């Protein structure tokens, strides 16, 4: 019995020494070689990765046809067959050791309206939004092990590519009929999507951009090697109103809360894991 114990102890020590010194990488085909400029690969290596979790953003949103027609009338090129709204959001990957990485995803077309008539013959020229010049990013690969993947601050933003006019109605007087008065124009910009307001019974009191069931629940404790797809679908739409010039333009009445809340349309966001 003692002989067996001695042998086992010796073998254990030797086995551990072999795997410790040579590394199980001695059995591992995943050598990573140092590449020098001429392509030679000497014996220097770095450690294997543990594995990866991949997040991809799939932008399945589309423009409302009325909005596309309006942009075309304004001289904006909307003939790209891959035309889709520009979407931006940030994802936080929290790892099992409580460290985290925040990655910003941005994807979509770079179309926008450059000017609008604000009455009295004047025109308002907007500046090129810097977000439209940002490189697109639709995937990220992080190391295992990932504890949680979530949209930061539940904030998904969609770029509204047109000026939105806010107008008010001046009541009629004895001398003048009711008039539409221009108040302000909102430049093309990113607008955050919001969840419907509901009461205590769950009934919708104010329709916004997401139904309460259409926001993603963050997946947790993902298996190493998982692929996570964040899929946003929906239609970018804006209200139209007869403005101060009697022309149908994107805009809303200052007292029309429902129309303002519904900007920029209706969406669904789901997360799928494989």
């Amino acid at each position, binding site marked *: 019995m003692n002989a067996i114990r001695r042998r086992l102890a010796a073998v254990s020590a030797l086995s551990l020494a072999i795997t410790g010194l040579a590394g199980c990488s001695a059995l591992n085909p*995943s050598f990573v070689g140092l590449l020098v400029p001429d392509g030679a690969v000497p014996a220097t290596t770095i450690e294997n990765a543990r594995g990866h979790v991949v997040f991809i953003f*799939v932008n399945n949103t589309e423009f409302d046809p009325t909005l596309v027609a309006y942009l075309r009338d304004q001289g904006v090129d909307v003939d790209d067959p891959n035309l889709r709204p520009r979407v931006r959001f940030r994802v936080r990957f929290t790892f099992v050791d409580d460290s985290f990485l925040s990655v910003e995803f941005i994807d979509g077309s770079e179309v926008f309206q450059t000017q609008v008539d604000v009455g009295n013959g004047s025109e308002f020229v907007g500046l090129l939004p810097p977000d439209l010049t940002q490189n697109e990013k639709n995937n990220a*690969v992080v190391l295992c092990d990932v504890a949680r993947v979530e949209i930061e601050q539940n904030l998904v933003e969609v770029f509204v590519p047109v000026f939105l006019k806010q107008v008010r109605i001046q009541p009629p007087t004895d001398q003048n009929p009711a008039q539409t008065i221009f108040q302000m124009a909102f430049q093309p910009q990113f607008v955050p999507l919001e969840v419907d307001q509901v009461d205590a019974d769950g009934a919708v009191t104010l329709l916004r951009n997401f139904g309460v069931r259409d926001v993603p629940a963050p997946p947790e404790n993902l298996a*190493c090697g998982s692929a996570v797809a964040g899929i946003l679908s929906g239609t970018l739409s804006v209200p139209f109103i007869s403005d101060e010039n009697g022309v149908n333009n994107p805009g809303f009445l200052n007292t029309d809360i429902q129309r303002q809340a519904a900007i920029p349309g209706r969406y669904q966001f789901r997360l799928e894991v494989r």
Partner: protein
Amino acid sequence: MRHATIKVMTGLAAVGLVTLGCNSNASLFNPSFVNFTSGGVVPLTPGLASQFILVRVVNNTNDTSIEFVVTVEREEQVSQGDDLVTQTTRETQRLITFPVGTAFEQGVLFECPVTRVGLGENLNNPTTEPALFLNAQVGGQAGFGVPGNVNPLDARVGNFTCGDTIVFQATEQAGTVGGVRVGSFVLPAADQPTEYRIDTFNNVRRFIEEQQPDE
């Protein structure tokens, strides 16, 4: 007989210990740990079938956050009148890393075909083009830009092929600009196992194809 029994048991124990430590099917261990030590659980390269290359950036400094600027070039044939002209397009991604926990590495997938991959927005100036931004923050300060001083990798001369993983690793080194040195590594897909427990990158390809409208 007794000695033979001891020998057999000793041999079995040795095989068992080495196998247990290095077998990807050892369910006793965390799969990511097994993959780290012996591989074969989840893929480390996208593989040719997925039609991606994976670029990983690794921050092995002690206390410096680094934003890596990774650029790929693709050559496309475009028609100009009656002629076919080769046009080079670029795609740049900025990957931020922190020397904390598991946040020291980040990666991105690029669709094949890719002609060249390197650091900095202009791959022709590796010794002067800012490629790493030291002490960068997410949504905050941009950091201090330093060149990568590493030549871009070129698929045309066989540095990599579609399906491979390319790694850029930053380590601390005195006497260099910014105190950081970058090395480049390639993990060829052809050297990898062909079957895995989870087929990560082909699942990504399937996600993309399922969402595209039928033509």
